[in-house]
């Protein structure tokens, strides 16, 4: 970070910058700066494009904070430490396993076991020939920028599951599930489309991952909710035999709202960065469709909630915002602004009914992850066929079905296997005491008087 003291090096930087050559490499003892051929326009494009991908990666990173806040806010105070812990671990495990195996699995670069279906397992990043080359991806961005951006995506899938299984899952079992899901399931599905596999050949369009990221996470969430069962006290049998839904209120609406704002912010990087360049027209366009879909989701969720619940529910509006965002993710690059308002608006309606409907089915999803990510992920994927020109409904359905057929059974299997080995759910006493006490022997809000009979 030195200035004058490293005068000579700065000179090199100035040149290096102009030719987009390697500063770190230079420091690391690389052969030095190659002959500067000024005026290489592509290099300067690389400079801006690569920068945008990195910034977008940092924005996607913020989504993990958003998920943590949202999930914490919508659950009870007695499980707060545990939820924060899980979310902190997921991003760490996500990054490490993706570096170890996931990235190469997802982008096999022609290296398949079964062409288009099963990529080769190649461990470690930075092992491929072009890992140190700025010429990677035809000079659009560097290898490491691509890795970090994709790695931030990867952890998202597991985070989605986290919210749905919160307040009752064993920490260890959840971490094992997450590691396998991020390291293997997500990348294999991803390789079918983004890795150039059969779904890509089929013409499936999923710009930033309504299906590839969100539905994949959503299927895992659904499997987890089914295997785990509802939280104690959520569905109460009355004396007359009927079951009543007893709401388990989240303990901090500010945390939940902060989470959604941060997720929206991160989504500009999630969708905007998925252009994989700083191309002015596309990125600007994606920003607008993303923002309008979220806004529309908020408004329609409010109206739906007002009608269905008589008074508008903040958590429904928060879910509506995310529903709009998940909805537009598949087609943010190809759906017009007007179309994006419709797509987001429909998602905002769907999500409210989905949350209420899943509750009727006794599928206890504390944060609405299934409704937001799975249901609206499917809607968004379909919407591409309806609102963009030249996209095939069949291909979209293929993509959706492929996710269902791959991810849901595998997730079910994983959860079931954990249930019969390590155990999946904490004991009744632990659940009543709260996972903070049971799993961490800690308090989340030391000193605060918290009163709850749930």
């Amino acid at each position, binding site marked *: 970070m030195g200035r004058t003291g490293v005068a000579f090096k700065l000179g090199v930087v100035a040149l290096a910058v102009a030719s987009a050559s390697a500063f770190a490499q230079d420091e690391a003892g690389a052969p030095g700066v190659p002959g500067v051929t000024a005026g290489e326009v592509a290099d300067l494009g690389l400079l801006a494009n690569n920068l945008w991908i990195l910034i977008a990666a940092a924005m996607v990173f913020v989504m993990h904070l958003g998920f943590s806040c949202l999930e914490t806010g919508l659950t009870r105070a007695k499980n707060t430490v545990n939820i924060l812990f899980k979310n902190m671990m997921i991003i760490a495990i996500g990054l490490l396993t993706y570096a170890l195996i996931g990235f190469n699995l997802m982008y096999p670069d022609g290296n398949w076991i079964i062409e288009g279906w099963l990529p080769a397992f190649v461990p470690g990043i930075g092992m491929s020939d072009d890992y140190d080359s700025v010429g990677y991806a035809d000079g659009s961005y560097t290898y490491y920028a691509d890795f970090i951006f994709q790695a931030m995506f990867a952890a998202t899938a597991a985070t989605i599951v986290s919210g749905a299984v919160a307040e009752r899952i064993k920490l260890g079992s959840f971490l094992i599930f997450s590691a396998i899901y991020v390291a293997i399931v997500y990348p294999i599905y991803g390789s079918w489309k983004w890795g150039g596999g059969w779904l890509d050949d089929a013409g499936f369009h999923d710009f930033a991952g309504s299906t590839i990221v969100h539905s994949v996470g959503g299927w895992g969430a659904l499997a987890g909710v089914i295997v785990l069962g509802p939280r104690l006290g959520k569905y109460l049998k009355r004396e007359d035999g009927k079951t009543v*839904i*007893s*709401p*388990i*209120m*989240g303990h901090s609406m500010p945390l939940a709202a902060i989470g959604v704002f941060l997720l929206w912010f991160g989504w500009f990087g999630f969708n905007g960065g998925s252009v994989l360049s700083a191309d002015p027209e596309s990125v600007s366009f994606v920003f607008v469709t993303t923002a309008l879909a979220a806004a529309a989701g908020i408004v329609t969720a409010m109206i739906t909630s007002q009608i*269905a*619940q*008589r*008074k508008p*529910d903040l*958590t*429904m509006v928060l879910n509506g915002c995310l529903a709009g965002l998940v909805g537009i993710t598949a087609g943010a690059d190809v759906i017009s602004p007007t179309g994006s308002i419709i797509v987001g608006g429909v998602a905002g309606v769907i999500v*409210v009914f989905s*949350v*209420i409907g899943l*509750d009727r089915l006794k599928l206890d999803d504390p944060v*609405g992850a299934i409704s937001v990510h799975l249901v609206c992920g499917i809607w968004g994927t379909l919407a591409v066929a309806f609102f963009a020109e030249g996209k095939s409904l069949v291909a979209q359905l293929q993509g959706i079905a492929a996710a269902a057929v791959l991810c849901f059974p595998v997730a079910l299997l994983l959860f079931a296997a954990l249930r019969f080995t390590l155990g999946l759910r904490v004991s009744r006493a632990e659940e009543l005491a709260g996972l903070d006490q049971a799993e961490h022997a800690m308090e989340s809000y030391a000193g605060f*008087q918290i*009163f709850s009979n749930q």
Partner: protein
Amino acid sequence: MRLVIAYIRPEKLTDVKNALAKAEVLKISVTNALGCGDEPATHEQYRGAGIEVDLQKRVRLEIAVNEQYVDKTVKAIIEGGAAKAGEPGADQSSGGDGKIFVLALEDCYRIRTGERGDDAIG
């Protein structure tokens, strides 16, 4: 000596305290409480499911007084604690303003000095 316990609406605390102060009852202890009485339950909702909250926020007062102050204290609490026109609770005959309970107090000590009995109370 008597121990007066009262449950009142939180928003009436200032009024009650003022009424007590006029009655020269200055030492009181206050706790946060939830009460279930005649008052109508509040309807709450969360993510599509409704719930009737029958435990309402109340404030609990505990006041130790000498005999001659008991009536004054009770009167002051009733005066300050009853809902006035325009306030919540005033329009409904169904209540929620609270109760006053009077118990016999056998003994009283002042921690600072170790004083005991009537002298310790004030």
